[in-house]
């Protein structure tokens, strides 16, 4: 009984401290996506470089690919962009750009300046497709497998570390399966 009087407050303190400590390195902006493990929503959007054509994810069925949501107005997108340029040069996997709430002319100018790693860029001017993908801030990046299922989502810029430790191992695993 006596020992409980000492142990209990310490245990409660330790429990609270543990939760607070865990809370420190959790990003409150990172909301777990309910879409992981679900089929990537279908869409048909105009191709940014040729607005008379449309593109749909159906075209990449059977391949592992990245969907990168960006915009020429988005500063953080410039941070991750060189990584995509490298990935495209290495030919690791096709990357599709979704220009979110961006005028096609601005998107094209931005890509001309910073390089275009995308197999195709589509324009979601009104943002309807972004809502289907649960996008709430650019950049966001989705990894989609051969069966069209979303396997991974990065909120915010893809960092070299995320690429090395999470994205690339998963890409290899999905490409081999």
């Amino acid at each position, binding site marked *: 009984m006596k020992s409980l009087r000492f142990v209990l407050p310490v245990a409660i303190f330790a429990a609270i401290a543990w939760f607070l400590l865990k809370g420190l390195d959790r990003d*409150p902006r990172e909301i777990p996506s*309910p879409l992981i493990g679900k089929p990537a929503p279908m869409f048909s959007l105009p191709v940014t470089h040729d607005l008379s054509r449309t593109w749909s994810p159906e075209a990449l069925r059977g391949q592992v690919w990245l969907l990168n949501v960006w915009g020429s107005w988005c500063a953080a997108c410039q941070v991750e962009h060189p990584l995509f340029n490298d990935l495209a040069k290495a030919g690791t996997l096709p990357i599709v750009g979704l220009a979110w709430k961006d005028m096609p002319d601005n998107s094209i100018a931005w890509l001309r300046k910073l390089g275009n790693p995308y197999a195709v860029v589509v324009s979601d001017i009104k943002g309807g497709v972004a809502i289907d993908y649960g996008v*709430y801030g650019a950049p966001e990046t989705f990894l989609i497998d051969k069966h069209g299922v979303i396997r991974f989502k990065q909120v915010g810029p893809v960092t070299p570390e995320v690429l090395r430790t999470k994205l690339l191992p998963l890409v290899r695993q999905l490409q081999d399966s």
Partner: protein
Amino acid sequence: MRAAATRSSRGALAGLALAAMVLFVGVPGPGTAADPPAASPAPAPATLATAAPSDTGLLTTPEQRARYQALAEQLRCLVCQNQTLADSNAELAADLRRQVETMILAGRNDGEIKSFLVERYGDFVLYRPPMQQNTWLLWIGPFALLVIGALVWWRIQGRGRAGEAPDLERARRLLDE
């Protein structure tokens, strides 16, 4: 000597009480004077809140507008996380408000509209978390803590009353010496 000490401490207590009273009485004084001007700006935000969110004017009937207003106040803006869709000026919030409006116009019920957003953005879009397996602690926790607190208080009270008699006796014995 002993009596003097108690009197002076009583005096100090009385002084404290007086100071506290002055403080408490002192506060409402200027407050009441400031009340009438403070009351007038209050209705302004309310009218703003009802006017601002419906930015497309798609909804015409009062019922539709009431439903829309209620929904916009229950759904979270994911960009500025502590604001509702109704409160937020973020572009995404405007997109989602328009989505809610179009779904109301299309004759979808409130449950369908909420689950549409939950499927894409997760439970986090709901300001009122649903009661389910991973949230029961959130719902029950505060009440459980209240019960525990009441139990602890009750035990301490009980012990205090039981321990009072021997203490009094001891004090009397000491005084008699």
